[in-house]
């Protein structure tokens, strides 16, 4: 509660960047809160100009824009101010770019189209993380990420099993700034999932639904039924018993290129 009060005093500055005015407006409306000061920019150039003046806390930018693209905007801002949170809005064709942009320092991405709630969950999670980073001490230290995992930073991990099989789970950091998880919804067996797309949805105590991006494409061979029974395993043993799915991934090597090795 103390934190919130402090935030009251300084309004969070958010910049929405999209070359389509309607999208911009919609996004602004979706996230407008009293504590947020939301501005709009219709191009990357304009966004950079505005950021110089106002020094935004969070930039939500479309990936594909004429002129300076979302990724260029991300890198330009991050060079001077690495603390800025950048969320990329992406269309389906650029989802690989989005996955890779996480490597470049984007907090997360959100594929079009999305609901206001989905965006709000993401924004709130982003601010929580930013806030969390500021807190020196944690109640429990983050468990060490075992070696040999491939990470979609802040989201999921992937472990290569025997040929073309891979196990997928959620990294500990994802849960760090979330309230208690109340529900998990996994994509059923035999369905095909694609890298960067949803492979699971988790709901926290606040009712926010968070989409979990799959680190690789493949056909779901097995789902972890245990976590549906004991949902706490997700946070307790994120790299062990808390795994989500096992997939058969024919293009595993290619998918791994977009990930970061632990």
């Amino acid at each position, binding site marked *: 509660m103390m934190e919130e009060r402090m935030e009251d005093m300084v309004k969070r500055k958010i910049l929405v960047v999209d070359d389509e005015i309607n999208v911009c407006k*919609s996004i602004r409306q979706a996230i407008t809160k009293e504590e947020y000061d939301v501005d709009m920019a219709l191009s990357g150039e304009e966004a950079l100009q505005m950021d110089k003046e106002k020094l935004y806390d969070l930039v939500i930018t479309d990936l*594909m824009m004429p002129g300076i693209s979302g990724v260029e905007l991300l890198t330009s801002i991050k060079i001077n101010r690495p603390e800025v949170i950048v969320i990329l809005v992406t269309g389906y*064709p650029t989802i690989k770019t989005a996955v890779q942009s996480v490597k470049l320092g984007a907090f997360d991405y959100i594929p079009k189209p999305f609901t*206001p709630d989905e*965006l709000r969950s993401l924004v709130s999670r982003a601010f929580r993380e930013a806030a969390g980073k500021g807190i020196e001490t944690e109640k429990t230290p983050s468990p060490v990420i075992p070696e040999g995992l491939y990470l979609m930073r802040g989201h999921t991990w992937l472990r290569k099993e025997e040929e073309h*099989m891979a196990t997928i789970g959620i990294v500990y950091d994802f849960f760090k700034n979330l309230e208690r998880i109340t529900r998990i919804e996994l994509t059923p067996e035999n*369905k095909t999932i*694609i890298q960067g797309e949803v492979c699971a949805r988790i709901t926290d105590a606040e009712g926010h639904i968070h989409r979990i991006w799959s680190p690789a494409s493949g056909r779901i061979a097995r789902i972890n039924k245990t976590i549906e029974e004991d949902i706490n395993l997700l946070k307790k043993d994120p790299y062990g018993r808390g795994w989500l799915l096992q997939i058969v991934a*024919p*293009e595993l090597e290619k998918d791994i290129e977009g990930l970061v090795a632990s």
Partner: protein
Amino acid sequence: MKFKRYLDKFLNLPLRHKFILSFLAVISLGGLLTLTFGTRLEHRTIISLAQAKVQHDLASAWMVYNEKLSDIRDIVRINSSRESVQNSLKTNDRETLLKYLGRVRKEFNLDVLSLTDSQGKIIFRTSQPDLWGDEQDHDPLVLRALKGEIVSSTQIIPREDLVKENKNLAVQAYLDIIPTPKAAPSLKKHEEDGMMLKAAAPLIDEDYRIIGVLYGGILLNRDYEIVDRVKEIVFKGEKYKGREIGTATIFQHDLRISTNVKKENGERAIGTRVSQEVNQAVLKEGKPWIHRAFVVNAWYISAYEPIKNIDGGIIGILYVGMLEKPYIDLRNKVMITFTGIAVLCVIILLVILFFITSTIIRPLQNMVFATNKIARGDMNHKVDISFQDEVGQLAQSFNQMTDALKIANQKLILWGKTLEKRVEERTKELKDMQDSMIQSEKMASLGKIAAGVAHEINNPLTSILINTHLMMEKTSKESPFQENLNMISEETSRCSDIVKGLLEFARQNPPQKSYVDINEIVNTVIGILEKQVTLKNIQIFKKLEKKLPLIGVDASKIKQVFWNLIINAAEAMPQGGTLMISSRLSRSEQFIEVECLDTGVGISDEQKKKLFDPFFTTKGGGTGLGLAVSYGIIEQHHGRIDVKSQLSQGSSFTVSLPVKGT
């Protein structure tokens, strides 16, 4: 024209006939020529031989003739020099002389023996003693004898002289002239004069005075002694078929007065005349004439020579002739023999020819027979090789040719069969290719449109979704608008899903190719999927051809294709079944084919058309992109996917990838 027609007719004859006719023509021509020239030559030889003989015979005849003449001369000479005769003449003792000389005449068979005085006045004629005292000085022989010569010669004696000597002589000399064809024209109806061999000698006394002349002679008319003697001496009386071979004749001028040439009735042909031709040559020109001549009624090879009197005047002809018939018969015999030999030769030749042509023609006929058989399709027929001559070699070559033909024919038949099959296959391939081209074009344009539309549609969808949700938030939960807004939200999400599908299909990166073993990829995919729940009730068989060439493909993409195919096959067999995966090199060796054959539910023709269209699915939960994406991948590799299927029997998907990547 006519000749050409005959030539054509000849050339169209069977070979044997042609052979035989040609040989026959040559032989006939040769034979004919030989016969003609041979017989002519032979004839000439025989005739000239005969002529030489007849010439010789004529000489013999002259000898007989002259001998007779010299006999008379001897009688006259001896008696004229007899002392008793001279004494009796001196004493004019006619009685004694007549007695003595009369006896001499009879003894020596003379027709005439007379004595003149030194003036040429007849003292007496032994043949007619009653008539004497007339002058005999017109007689050239007597005149010459009065000058002291002993002379002999053939003389023409006028009728009055004959009558003086003896009436009988005139009768003997008288001849009716028988009209003779070919004789010189003459008005004379009969001959009254006679022709006589005559000699005269002077009687010379002791004082060498000529006191008288003794002359004697033989009348030749109807006297056949000489001619018959000639016949006897020269021809030895030989006869040929009832005819005398040799004949002799003495002519008085051109009239036969003594001859042994017989008429048809067997009488001697006296009274007939010599031909005008001979008349001209011998009597007028005084030349001998040796030739073939038609004498009375037959051909003779004859020789004529003139008979001259004491003054050298031509008064008659001596003739010798040989019957030509024996020579002609000889010639004919030779000719017949000749011809016979020729004919025999021809016959022998024909027989030989027949056998030779048979040996030549029979193999040829066999060959013709064989050719016909082969033409009718019997390739197994063989020609017998009888000899190693040209025909034999031909037969051998022919057999070889037949063998080659047989093989070629078999090949052709086989080829025809495979051709049919190939055409069928090729037609099918073409049709498939056409189908796949239509499909690929459809896909290409669809992909382009999809990419463009998907991108553009995402932005409005985002706005719609956000604003719908914002409205939902602002409207009370009980509001009836909630349901509508919810519907908008859901439908918007569905739009988004559709767009996502489109983009998934459209998003095809260029393949990153490396050389791989297709079998390895197939094995990997099967290895992964075997453990899957989906493939639990399915038996998988592999029939992979070893030693396939490595091909340049994007391994991960191709893997995805096999993946999709196998998953699809498995899903087509929910109750389990058999899955056969085979790889092979195409017949053309230009493609590697991987076939995925299941025993599943199969695909209807209707479904087959849309099989590769994006979002087409027969499964409840499918995205409908698996095959579309697979299709796109194989397309990028310049390959093909072919589908064969039968409802409730199963389906076969065959992926063909080019061995040489383009």
